[in-house]
């Protein structure tokens, strides 16, 4: 039963990654695209975790941890870039 549930979950998450890709391509502002990228990262993380359950190996969770950290850093970097125009701000030096 858990195999069936995992397959359904993977399929639904794939569909919602496609839906977020639509917003990534269409979105009128940079903020819309950043939101879509954040959603895609969260869905990829969830897909990796569901795949680890499906294959019954906890080794894939390392990849999920890396994706979580990268997603947060990318979001903060985009926010900084939108506000200042640069990611690393040296104007205070």
């Amino acid at each position, binding site marked *: 039963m858990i195999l069936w549930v995992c397959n359904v979950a993977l399929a639904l*998450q794939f569909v919602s990654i496609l839906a977020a890709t639509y917003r990534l391509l269409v979105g009128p502002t940079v903020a819309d695209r950043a939101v879509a990228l954040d*959603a895609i990262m969260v869905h990829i993380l969830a897909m990796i*975790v569901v795949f*680890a359950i499906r294959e019954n190996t906890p080794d894939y969770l390392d990849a999920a941890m890396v994706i979580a950290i990268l997603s947060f850093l990318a979001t903060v970097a*985009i926010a900084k870039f*939108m506000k200042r125009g640069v990611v690393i701000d040296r104007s205070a030096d």
Partner: protein
Amino acid sequence: MIEVLTSLLILTGVFFSVVGTLGIIRMPDVYNRIHAMSKASTLGVVSILFASSLHFLTHTSAFSMKELAILVFMYLSNPVGAHAIIRAAYLVGVPLSERTVGDQLQHEKSAHHE
């Protein structure tokens, strides 16, 4: 029994993630979109990670802290990232939807532009 609980948790998480993405598509402006997405997808991914923790607790001999570490990190970092992005969007001047009723941060935007 544990398998049923794990399956229910996975399906709950997927449901909330899909609802969050639906909000990204349907909502009128970026503030509504991130409002729909960040909370729903945080709950969804936390639910899936909890399911994974439960599954590996019963199916493998060793108890792994990885899921719980990711869970705590996602629970802390996802709202912070959403807040950073939406604050930058507001200060840059992304327009609000025309159905917005009030804007209580207006003074902050004018202070930022001076």
